[in-house]
């Protein structure tokens, strides 16, 4: 019989993660939400591994640990991402003294005469939403 509860937990966790990613303005908190999503995946993997192990053990074929290994890898990936991510967010914070994700524009701002090098310290923190270009 397939375990249902862990899948439900994983689904909920992933939902919360997604909600966190979409709502949170601060980069670090957004990172945490992503970690939640990754851990949800881990849960799915571990439960799936046990069910596979059960079916395979019955059939006598021995490759039981794929799921677990996959979970380990995901943990490693998450760790690496957090490491690099924090460094980048820090750099942004140092430059913009704000790590708000929604102030990072996707398309090029109106090219002020000298768009090449933004001055180091921005005198006034940018308003919540840059004037729509």
């Amino acid at each position, binding site marked *: 019989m397939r375990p249902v509860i862990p*899948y439900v937990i994983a689904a909920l966790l*992933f939902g919360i*993660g997604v909600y966190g*990613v979409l709502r949170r303005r601060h*980069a670090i908190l*957004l*990172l945490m939400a*992503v970690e939640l*999503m*990754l851990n*949800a*995946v881990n849960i*799915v*993997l571990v*439960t*799936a591994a046990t*069910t*596979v192990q059960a*079916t*395979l053990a019955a059939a006598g*074929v*021995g*490759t039981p640990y*794929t*799921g677990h*290994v*996959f979970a380990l*890898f*995901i943990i*490693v*990936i998450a760790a*690496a*991402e957090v490491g*690099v*991510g924090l*460094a*980048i*967010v820090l*750099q*942004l914070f140092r*430059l*913009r003294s704000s790590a708000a*994700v929604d102030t*990072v*524009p*996707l*398309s*090029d701002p109106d*090219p002020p*005469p*000298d768009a*090449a*090098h*933004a001055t*180091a310290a921005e005198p006034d923190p940018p308003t919540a939403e840059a004037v729509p270009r």
Partner: protein
Amino acid sequence: MIQTIDHVALLPAYLAAATAVLALVTDLALARRQVTVAVTATGAAATAVAAWVVGTGPVRETFCLPAAPDACSYVADQTSALMAVLFALLTLGVLGLSTGALRSLPTGEYCFLLAASMTGGVALAYSRDLITLIVALETLTLPLYALVGLKRRSLASAQGAVTLFVVSVVATSVTLLGAALLYASTGVVHLNQLAAALTGGVPAELQTLATVSVVLILAGLAFKVAAVPFHAWAPAAYDGAPVPVAAYLSTASKLGGVVAVLYVVVLGLRPWLDVIGWVLAALAIATMTVGNLVALRQRRVVRLLAWSSVAQAGYILAPLGVFAVASGRTDEALTLAVTATIAYAIFYVVIELAAFGSVAAMRGGDADGGEIEAYRGAARRAPLVGAAFTLALIGLAGLPPGLAGMFAKVAVIRALLGGGAGWLALIVAINAVIGLVYYLRVAALLYSTPPEPEPAPAAVPVPAPAPAPAPESTRVTAPVGGPAAAAAAEQEPRPGPAAGLAVPAEEPEGPPGSSAVPWAVAAALAGATLVAIVIGFAPQLVLDLATLAVP
């Protein structure tokens, strides 16, 4: 019992990793820029050679499951060899382009990150199961976050890095969720086992779960290829990054995405082509169209190239769209489509490298891409680099002087019509026309009359326009190089890279302080353009490689 590991198969991966470590150690020990770059370059070259040598040998498999010896995680066959060589050569090319930018970037970290990313790429080429594939993909992408954000004190660079990082992390989590659910529904991770499991059919109650998982994996991989709707990160990341890193993003990173999609689709989801066929077709159409349309409005060069590379990703995925049609799912049609995809990818990376190379050579130093308007008349000051850039742009548009680009598009159309997806071929054709609009705008701008040197303070890093030749007509100076150079370039092989070295002597040097094109950048650009011209004249070479490399 200890699993036997075939170290010869792993040699390219070892060499790549070794390059990364060596780069770090040399920088630590000697801290001299040329040496670090030289070490990384030799490492990349060695990886390429090793991958080629291993590729020519018999198919080597290692890290196989004890129970099922054919399900192996690491397979060194012809496909992997081609992809690994491509990754290595691209890294070498980007390294060549970076000598200009390295004046203001930490060389050690830069070379290490680049080599690490190359290792990820090489590992990806050889991976045959979902875990190795995703991990290799992450190894390829992680260094890029740092590389994009490497420009100190540049807000755009930091913002680009954050954009890339956030979107990439979310996409990876989506992929991982897909992989996990797929593992949950099929119980296997190796691609060939997955194919076997799917032919057998997934138990009924898990059918929807499996379908969703497959789609989620494709969505995650589509992020890597920057396919619409997962593309929004590309323009900001490319523009913020230093030009060579943007080159790497648009070539190697995109190639990684394509390789991942190819392995998953062709090796893993072969029986379920009908399920994912339309996904690929929809992705391709959306990517082509949105990429081309938005590129029309861009005012900065690198952003334009970013959008154009989004559109080109659409063209690469287009042949895979043929799976949406029943007649496209036969073996013969599949080989046609995959060959076309690989061939287009190869043509694309070579021309894209030439394009970014030209931008790097023209802008020189560590400047960013800058406004398109700043390139007005640039081909007069630097005729050879101008000609290379025009040739690259026309190649991306797919028109004759850029024969490579044209044969790429012809191959795509041939594959689509071979598989019976005529409507998709028409969409590709229309997109080619839209594409020409912005490529031609930039190419024509290069040869138009340069602006009178108004006293604008803008530190136009491009060497100041040479003293205007005697205006022989009321119009402002005539195009010095003349578009003929571009047309002529198509006719006869370019003079050896050496000649393309510094800007030709007779071109009087601009005011002091403007840097001549460093020899490595010129060499990389000349090499890329030469390769583009050779494969333009003899596309069969690429097509043969691609046919061999069908997984």
